[in-house]
Structures are given as structure tokens and as C-alpha cells.
């Protein structure tokens, strides 16, 4: 029994090391750092978990998911050629798609066949107070309805009534509510929080204290 666990853990550590070093090797041709004492754990690489985009908007043949042995792969368009001249953003495709529409730089069809059909746009902002220090959330119908139809959200994802929906950050991160589309429109990351959390809290706002802190006997 014990040997089994031992074996498993050794196996796991080896996987970690192999994959870890592969990842490191793939990132940059770093010089091999030899520790002075030689016997220090190889697990102490500086970034154990951080993953940076090594190459933004990689061409299909180099993006890791397209097979470069497939002839069609080389006919596909590299994203950067298409993005030339579009306003940029700091995450996702690194393109500000909403601004591209507003500036008239892109005119994607709203109808399968007829390029002249105009979208049914509704300009209605919904404010949701956030029970945390983060700025309150503003949901703008305008950019959403420029791309989507009411039926994409109502009533399956959101009941069309203010406050009728329970939304939380964990639900979003689990891919529910606003999180349904955060895999395609823009990702949730440090630089994108304020896109949704856009309405500053009142100047006198203070975070409520947790009960454990109020009754803390060591304070």
C-alpha cells in the first residue's frame, strides 16, 4: 500500500519536472542555472504556475492546435493580417471588437444572406450593486444587442427583469450567467475587471466587516 503511494508520488513528481522543464525550454532559451550546492530541489523554478502568452495572435501553423502537416492549415489566414488597423485591447484577441463596430471599421452581417439588415439595438444600462470593494457592475444592453439577439440571453440565461437574477463572480468564473460568453467575447483577467466593474462606489463606501473580525478576541 505504502509503496504504491510512494510510486505514485514519484511518478507525479517526475511528470511535474518533465513538463515543467519542457515548458521552461519552450519559453525562452534560458541558460541552465546550476545551483551552487547542486542538491537543491529542481522544483524551485521562479514561476511555477504563471503562464504568459508567449506569442500573441500566432499564425495557424504555429499556434499549437492546427496540424502543420495538413495542407489546409497553410491556407488559413493568420489573425494579425486581419487585425491590421483595428483598435486594440489588452486581452482576448487583443482587438477591441465593440469599438471596431462603433467606428464603422467592421460591418459583420446581422442576417445570413442580406448584408443590409440592421441589428435591433437597445440602449439600456442595468446597474448591479456589488457587495464588495469592487466598483459596481454596469450591464450595457447596447454593445450586447449590436452583436446578439434578445433571445440569446432572455429568458434562458437571464430573466428580463432587474434584480430577478442571482449573479456572482464565482458563477461567472464557472461559466454561468455573464460567464457563458467570457470565452469568446473577452476573458476575465486583471486587466478586464473594470470593463464590467465600471461604476465607482460612493466616496464614503467602506467594506462591511466580517463577523469573525468584529468578535475577534485577540484584537
Amino acid at each position, binding site marked *: 500500500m*505504502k509503496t504504491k*503511494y*510512494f510510486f505514485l*508520488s*514519484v*511518478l*507525479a513528481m517526475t*511528470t*511535474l519536472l518533465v513538463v*515543467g522543464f519542457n515548458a521552461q525550454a519552450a519559453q525562452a532559451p534560458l541558460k541552465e542555472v546550476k545551483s551552487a550546492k547542486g542538491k537543491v530541489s529542481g522544483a524551485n523554478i521562479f514561476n511555477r*504556475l504563471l*503562464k*504568459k*502568452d*508567449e506569442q500573441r*495572435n*500566432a499564425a495557424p501553423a*504555429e*499556434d*499549437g*492546435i*492546427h*496540424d502543420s502537416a*495538413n495542407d*489546409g*492549415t497553410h491556407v*488559413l489566414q493568420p*489573425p494579425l493580417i*486581419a487585425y491590421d488597423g483595428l483598435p486594440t485591447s489588452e486581452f*482576448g*484577441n487583443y482587438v477591441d*471588437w465593440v469599438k471596431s463596430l462603433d467606428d464603422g471599421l*467592421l460591418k*459583420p*452581417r*446581422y*442576417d*445570413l*444572406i442580406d448584408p443590409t439588415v440592421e*441589428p435591433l439595438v437597445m440602449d439600456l444600462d442595468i446597474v448591479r450593486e456589488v*457587495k464588495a470593494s469592487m466598483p459596481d457592475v454596469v450591464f450595457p444592453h447596447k454593445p450586447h444587442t449590436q*452583436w*446578439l*439577439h434578445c*433571445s*440569446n440571453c432572455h429568458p434562458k440565461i437571464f430573466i428580463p427583469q432587474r434584480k430577478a437574477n442571482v449573479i*456572482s*463572480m*464565482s458563477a461567472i*468564473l*464557472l461559466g454561468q450567467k455573464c*460567464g*457563458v*460568453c*467570457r*470565452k*469568446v467575447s473577452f*476573458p*476575465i*483577467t486583471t486587466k478586464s475587471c473594470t470593463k464590467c466593474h465600471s461604476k465607482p462606489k460612493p466616496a464614503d463606501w467602506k467594506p462591511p466587516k466580517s463577523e469573525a473580525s468584529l468578535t475577534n478576541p485577540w484584537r
Partner: protein
Amino acid sequence: MFKSAMVGLLSMFAVLMLPQAAQAEYADVVINNYADAAGMRPVVFPHWYHRIRFRCKVCHADLGFKFKAGGNKITMAKIIDGKFCGACHNGEISWSVENCGMCHSGVPGMPTQIHGSTVQRLVAPTYKSLDKPAK
């Protein structure tokens, strides 16, 4: 002993959770419910390329694509019947379906997934808040 085994297992899990291809364009969808099993490369659907030409509404409302990678159970029979990709890749709106390698361009063996999603980039699988009733 048990502890080290757990640490080992956890680290193995963490490794498996790491994104396999951090470079892929954001929102590229790999679809591989059946392709591999039939000896075809998995399909790669580029959202960026299509959203330059169509609003989400066309595919996700009019054509009925569900918001779930692999969730539409697309097959070639449905495609040549004018459903899903076949609503456009029919030689009328876009190039026709005989261009197998344009869609079936993925690295063999890749599972169905959506690229660059927050979930894919998480260091630990998920985060769940304490289930306290909101005041």
C-alpha cells in the same frame, strides 16, 4: 508518506490542468466528438474570422448553434443537409464542403475545447464562494 503522495498527486493534477497550447488564438474552438474516431483530424473553428463577417446572432440565434463547444453534435450528414457549418459552407455563402482540410485542420487526438477561456487559464480547477445567503 501519505502526505507526500497527496502532494505528488496534486502536482500531477496541476500539470494536467495547465493549458496545452497557450498560443492558440482566443476563442478558437476544437471540435472532436467524432472526427478522430473516423480517422479525420479534429475540426478547428475560428471565432475571430467569422465574427468579422457575421454577428453572433446569425449563428447562435438564427442557425441554432448552442453556446457549448462540442454541444451541437455536428456531423457531416447534417452539414451537407444545410445545417450548422453547412448553412454557409455550401458553395453559396462560403466555400464548399469538399475542402475537408480547411475545417479538419487540428492536431490529431486533441480533445474538444475552447481556447483562451478563463477556465482554461485557471491555475486551480475552480473557485466556489461560501454559500452564504446574500443580504
